[in-house]
C-alpha cells in the first residue's frame, strides 16, 4: 500500500521538481545572458557589478521583485487579476512534461505528446487576455487584444508545421519523432533538410507565439507602454517574466527536437565518441536557438501590427499548407529515410 503510494505519487513529484527547479534557474541565467549579449551587441558592458562577471545580477533582480508590493489597480477584477499570472505560468511549466531529454530521460512518454504540447501552449494566451482585461486599463486591454489575435494567427501556421513533422515521422510521440530522424548520415538525416521552409516558419512562429521581438506588439513599449502587464508589479510581474522566458526555452527545445534531431549527434555514428547521441547535444542545440531569440531582439526593428497579420495569414499559412502536401509526397514515394535504416 505505502510502497504503491510512493511509486505512484512521490517519484513523479521528484521528477517534476528535477525539471522545474533547473528550469527556473535556467530562466534566471538566461535573463542574465540576454542582458549581457544585448549589451555586447550594443557595444556596452551589460551587467557586471554583482558577483563574478555580474553572474548574480539575475538573482538580485528576482529578490528585488519579490520584495516589492503587488499593487491592485482601482476597480480591477481582483480574482482574475491575481489568477492571470498563474494561468500563464502553469501551461508554460506543464508543457515540459512530455519533452524527451534523451532516449530514456522523459517524464511522460505520452503517445499524443505533440497534441498535448499544442494544447498547453494554446492555453497560455488566457493569462495574457485576462491580465489585460482585469487590470482595468486601456493600454493593458489593447495589449491583450493584440496578443490574442497574434497568438491565434501564428498557432495555425505552427500547427501546420507540426503536421509536416508528424507526416514524416508517422507518430505523435516526441521520442518516436526523434528516433525517426536517426540515420547513418547524421546531420543530413534530420527533418530540417526535407522540411526547410517549414522549419524556418516554425521557429519564426515560435518567436511570434512567445510575443518576443520583433513581434512584441503585445508589449509595444513605444505605443502602449508595456501592454498587458503594465499594471503588474512585484511578484505578479515576476511570474509573467518567468512564464515568458520558460516559453522561449521551450520553443528552443521543441525546434531542436522536431527539426534538429533532439539528442542525436550531428556526426555519423562511426565517428566514435562524438558520434554518440546524448542529452548534451540537445542542450547545445537548444542553447543555439535561444541565443537566436536574443539576436533577433538586438537586430530587428518591431513589426507593424498589420504586417504581422499579413506575414502570418498570407505568407506562412499558404507555404505551410503546400509543404504538408510536399511532405506527404516525400513520405509516399519514400524519398526521405525514416528511422535508423541501414
Amino acid at each position, binding site marked *: 500500500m505505502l510502497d504503491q503510494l510512493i511509486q505512484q505519487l512521490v517519484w513523479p513529484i521528484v521528477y517534476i521538481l528535477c525539471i522545474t527547479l533547473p528550469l527556473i534557474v535556467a530562466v534566471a541565467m538566461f535573463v542574465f545572458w540576454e542582458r549581457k549579449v544585448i549589451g555586447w551587441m550594443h557595444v556596452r558592458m551589460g551587467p557586471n557589478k554583482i558577483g563574478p562577471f555580474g553572474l548574480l545580477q539575475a538573482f538580485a533582480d528576482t529578490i528585488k521583485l519579490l520584495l516589492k508590493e503587488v499593487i491592485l489597480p482601482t476597480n480591477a477584477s481582483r480574482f482574475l487579476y491575481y489568477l492571470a499570472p498563474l494561468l500563464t505560468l502553469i501551461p508554460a511549466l506543464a508543457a515540459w512534461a512530455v519533452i524527451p531529454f534523451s532516449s530514456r530521460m522523459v517524464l511522460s512518454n505520452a503517445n499524443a505528446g505533440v497534441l498535448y504540447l499544442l*494544447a498547453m501552449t494554446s492555453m497560455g494566451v488566457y493569462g495574457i487576455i485576462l491580465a489585460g482585461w482585469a487590470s482595468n486599463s486601456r493600454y493593458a486591454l489593447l495589449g491583450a487584444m493584440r496578443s490574442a489575435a497574434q497568438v491565434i494567427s501564428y498557432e495555425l501556421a505552427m*500547427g501546420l508545421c507540426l503536421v509536416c513533422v508528424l507526416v514524416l515521422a508517422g507518430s505523435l510521440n516526441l521520442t518516436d519523432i526523434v528516433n525517426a530522424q536517426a540515420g547513418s548520415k547524421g546531420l543530413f538525416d534530420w527533418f530540417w533538410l526535407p522540411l526547410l521552409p517549414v522549419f524556418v516558419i516554425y521557429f519564426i512562429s515560435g518567436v511570434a507565439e512567445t510575443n518576443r521581438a520583433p513581434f512584441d506588439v503585445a508589449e509595444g513599449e513605444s505605443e502602449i507602454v508595456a501592454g498587458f502587464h503594465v499594471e503588474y508589479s512585484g511578484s505578479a510581474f515576476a511570474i509573467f517574466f518567468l512564464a515568458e522566458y520558460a516559453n522561449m526555452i521551450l520553443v528552443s527545445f521543441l525546434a531542436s527536437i522536431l527539426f534538429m534531431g533532439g539528442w542525436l549527434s550531428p556526426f555519423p555514428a562511426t565517428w566514435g565518441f562524438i558520434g554518440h547521441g546524448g542529452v548534451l547535444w540537445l542542450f547545445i542545440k537548444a542553447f543555439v536557438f535561444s541565443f537566436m531569440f536574443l539576436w533577433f531582439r538586438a537586430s530587428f526593428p518591431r513589426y507593424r501590427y498589420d504586417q504581422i497579420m499579413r506575414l502570418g495569414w498570407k505568407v506562412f499559412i499558404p507555404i505551410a499548407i503546400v509543404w504538408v502536401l510536399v511532405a506527404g509526397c516525400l513520405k509516399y514515394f519514400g524519398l526521405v529515410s525514416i528511422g535508423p535504416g541501414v
Partner: protein
Amino acid sequence: MNPQLFQLICFYAFGVVTVASALAVISLRNTVHAVLALVLTFFSTACLWMLADAEFLALALIVVYVGAVMVLFLFVVMMLDIDQETMREGFVKFLPVGLIVAVVMLTEMLGLIGVRAMHAQLMGPNPASVAGVSNTAWLGHALYTQYLLPFEIAALILTVGVVAAVALTLRQRTDARHESASQQVRVNPRDRIRIVKMAAERPVGDAPAATQEPRP
C-alpha cells in the same frame, strides 16, 4: 488505493466540476466570467474524455475550443458593451422557449443513452486497445479508411461555412486607404532618397566667418 476506485473518484470530481461550471455559464452576471466558466466546462469535459481513453478527442477539444474558439469568444465579449438590465429582461422572455429546447434535448439524450445501453453487449471493449495501437493511430486509421466519405463531406461543409462567413463579413471600404505590401517591398531606395558624397571637413582656408565668434 486500487486504480478503479481512484478512476471513479476522478470521474465524479471532473463530472461535478463540469456540471457546476456549465451552471455558472448561464447564471453568472458578468459575461466575461461566464465565458471563463464555459472554458472550464470544456476543459473538464476534456478531462472526462481522457479518463475514457479518448486522448485524441480530449486534446483536440482543448486545442480547438479552449485554445482558439473560446479565445475569440472572450475577445468579442470584452469588446461588447453589454447592458445587464436588458439581458435580464431577455432571460424571462426567452425562458419558455429555452425550457422547451432543454426538455427536447434531454429526451433525445435519454433516448440515445437507452439505445446505447441496449447495444452495450454489441459494442464490446475499446477497439483501440483490442487492436493494440494508440487511440490516435486507431482513430486516424478508421477515419481515413472506413469513414473516408463522411469525413471528407464534413470537411467540405466546414470549408463552405468558412467561405460563407468570410463572404458575409467582407466589405471593401472605398473611403479607407489601403497599402499594397508587395509595392512597399518593391520600393527602390534610389527613388526616395539621394545620397550626396561630400568630405567630412572643409579645408582650413575657407572656413565661414560665422564660426569664429569672439568668446565673452
